């Protein structure tokens, strides 16, 4: 693999191949940031990959009380899916089971746009006829009576068809510990980029996959070319000094958000350097023929 070396870190001359997705955003608030966070974490749980979870979900950022409609602490959560109907289904299921149920929570639109997804206008039926519609400042809310008071939920939220899923970085190091340190630094940097999420646990995936399998029923299987324990047995993509690989997958509301997030991640890994972190950065692709968005690592160097 051709590469350039920046401050001792090898950056592969390759690209991340990403796909168009449908995405939406909601703002979750609560009486304290702890409970807003709890609701958001619960809602985005089991939302790592569309392959098995129906959607990819994550926390975009924490919101200051001044930024939320009700003046309470909150977070913005992003959801990505492959179709509008699946996104709608996942949104209602997750807000209905994880946010509506969380103490003191409220849920608002986190995205504007002409195309809308149902939110409170569908969840209101939980109120069994006692729900109240309220329009305030041009926005439509539903107030659903619940056991700790009321669940306030905006009637609808925005949908974008410009979203991109599958931006990624492959972080390679000489030990599992050093690779994890580099991946954590990248995750921390990417968290500062708006409109992008990293849907895997803590933003990091250790089980990167390839399409297909030797087994007919399995749609995706382990990326053997990047498994260090198979180095001698398969057509490996790893150098002899690489002992561990971690992947950061990035979904963004726009191609630019994904590019900015990858740029921030690469910069953080390079800043950490090969002695404390990763010695090589790569990216996953399918040869460029499947996904319309190609994020070349060389173009994203700091």
């Amino acid at each position, binding site marked *: 693999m051709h590469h350039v070396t920046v401050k001792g870190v090898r950056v592969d001359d390759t690209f991340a191949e990403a796909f168009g997705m449908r995405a939406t955003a909601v703002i979750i608030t609560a009486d304290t940031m702890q409970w807003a966070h709890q609701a958001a974490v619960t809602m985005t749980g089991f939302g790592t990959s569309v392959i098995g979870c129906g959607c990819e979900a994550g926390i975009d950022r924490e919101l200051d009380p001044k930024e939320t*409609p009700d003046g309470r602490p909150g977070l913005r959560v992003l959801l990505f899916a492959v179709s509008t109907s699946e996104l709608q289904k996942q949104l209602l299921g997750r807000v209905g089971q994880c946010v509506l149920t969380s103490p003191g929570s409220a849920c608002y639109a986190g995205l504007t746009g002409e195309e809308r997804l149902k939110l409170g206008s569908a969840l209101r039926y939980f109120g069994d006829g006692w729900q*109240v519609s309220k329009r305030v*400042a041009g926005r439509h*809310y539903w107030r659903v009576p619940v056991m700790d*008071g*009321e669940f*306030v939920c905006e009637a609808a939220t925005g949908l974008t068809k410009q979203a991109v899923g599958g931006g990624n970085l492959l972080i390679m190091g000489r030990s599992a510990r050093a690779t994890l340190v580099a991946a954590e630094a990248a995750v921390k940097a990417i968290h500062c980029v708006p409109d992008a999420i990293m849907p895997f646990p803590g933003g990091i995936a250790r089980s990167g996959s390839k399409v297909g399998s030797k087994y007919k029923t399995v749609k995706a299987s382990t990326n053997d070319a990047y498994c260090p324990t198979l180095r001698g047995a398969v057509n490996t993509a790893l150098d002899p000094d690489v002992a561990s690989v971690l992947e950061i997958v990035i979904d963004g509301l726009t191609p630019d958000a994904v590019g900015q997030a990858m740029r921030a991640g690469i910069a953080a890994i390079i800043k950490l350097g090969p002695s404390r972190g990763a010695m090589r950065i790569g990216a996953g692709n399918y040869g460029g023929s499947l996904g319309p968005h190609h994020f070349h690592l060389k173009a994203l160097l700091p």
Partner: protein
Amino acid sequence: MKPLILTLRARPDHRLDLSPLVPHLLAGKTSAAIEKIALQTTHGCVAVGDVFRMRMGDTQQVRIEGACDRLDLVGHGMTDGDIAVEGDVGSQAGRLMSGGRLTINGSVGPFAGSGMAGGHLDIIRSAGDRLGGPLAGEMAGMRGGVVTVRGDVGDRAGDRMRRGTIIVEGKAGRHAGSRMIAGTLLVRRVAGALPGYLMRRGTLVLGEGCDGFSPTFVDCGVHDLVATRLLESFVKAYSARAASILRRPLRRLAGDMAVLGKGEIFCSPD
């Protein structure tokens, strides 16, 4: 650009219909054409130039000076622009307006904001009966927009209101929010007897209670709700004084149980 200024020459002998003098109907007209606009009175027609001295200006900003309570239908059906009135006006100010801003630097008669669908009607002193209410035969009153009254309002404010917000910084008369279908009516000080009389849905907020609730409203306890926070942040943009009554836990009364019973009155917990 300077506003178009109309100064009343003298108190008219009859009631005067000012509905033609709204920005979207004045747009593109010359000074001479505006002076020739016919205004209906209870006794015939007069021309604008006969009753007003006019100084031409931007027709999107109309200023009426020396107004009196015989000027009816000020800002009727206005869709955009700005009308400012110095003095009192008569009935139906801002009736059917759907946009823009109408400021009355004085008091208004009955049916101000009647059937209003959008925009902002700002009344610096007091308003008469049936603020925002429907005329006889109409099914609904106010359908959108915001009305602010810095003084008191008469009886049946928000009658048959369907959407929108009325903010009263002073007192309200009897039956505030009567027959409300939806929407929000906020009274910072005390309201007269039987607020929310036959209301079906909607929200009434009473800062200092009322002269007596209907027995068909039921006490639902004291709550600090997210919905009142949303309302507070909206009302604050129009009246910080009125918004202050939402900044505390409030008692919720549900009613009117004589009809649908899905309305509510928020009032002081005491």
